[in-house]
């Protein structure tokens, strides 16, 4: 087991479970700079999974989108709460759980994330709304629960299925 402290992050524990699978738990106060730090620590922590470059960028992108959503929407950029991130390597990829104590999702359900339409005239192109499309496109088994005052979002990223090219 290795403990890797990062600035302003409450806790990061990396465990190598039997069978060499990786489990990470990270708790940090939600701010944009902390999301960056958390992603950096997480990607280092997942090093033992030997993900290929494509898989690694998928994990970083999905986690960035989810953590940014919590920061911007659940906590409304007020930097008032904590984010808890659990990642666990499984046979089917990377199982992820993100918990926060911010506002619930609108209508208590995660946005559908409609596919962007590149055929709109340029001036009509939205500059946002891509996040949930990417999350839904790159994950499976996505579930959302509102537990008392917490949001719990769980999903799986199907990575590490092919032999690593590293």
């Amino acid at each position, binding site marked *: 087991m290795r403990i890797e402290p990062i600035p302003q992050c409450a806790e990061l524990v990396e465990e190598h479970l039997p069978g060499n699978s990786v489990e990470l738990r990270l708790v940090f106060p939600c701010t944009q700079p902390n999301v960056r730090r958390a992603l950096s620590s997480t990607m280092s922590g997942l090093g033992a999974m030997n993900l290929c470059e494509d898989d690694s*960028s998928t994990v970083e992108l999905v986690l960035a989108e989810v953590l*940014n959503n919590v920061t911007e929407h659940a906590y409304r950029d007020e930097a008032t709460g904590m984010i808890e991130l659990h990642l666990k390597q499984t046979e089917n990829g990377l199982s992820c759980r993100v918990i926060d104590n911010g506002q619930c999702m609108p209508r208590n359900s995660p946005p559908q994330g409609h596919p962007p339409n*590149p055929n709109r005239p340029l*001036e009509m192109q939205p500059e946002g709304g*891509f996040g949930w499309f*990417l999350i839904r496109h790159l994950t499976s088994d996505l579930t959302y629960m509102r537990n008392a005052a917490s949001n719990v979002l769980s999903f799986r990223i199907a990575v590490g299925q092919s032999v690593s090219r590293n």
Partner: protein
Amino acid sequence: MQLETAHYDDFMVVTLLEDRLDAAIALDFKDTMRDLTLDAPPRVILDLANVRFLDSSGLGAVIGAMKQLGNRRKLELAGLKPAVDKVFRLTRMDTIFVIHPDLASALEGTGTSQTGQAHAY
């Protein structure tokens, strides 16, 4: 956030000197691009070769930078790394930009070497 620009007669090159274009700098990037391209020539080439990671906020800021140029000028992209290219492809936003493999390809046919008037920001 650090950017560098080089000005030529009918185009300019903006090079982003950051390895991430993400939610933490997206707004700043878009605002800076607006200031830098106020009097821009018809072609603005954004060199993203240093950028290793782009999220949807970064993508939105690049689209915003393109919209700020209006209809008479174009934002072209160069040097997309695989993780950056993936975000453009998945969202199909790769189809609304002219994308060059690298800056040298973007400058082909301009009769210019890369020696414009350079400024760092």
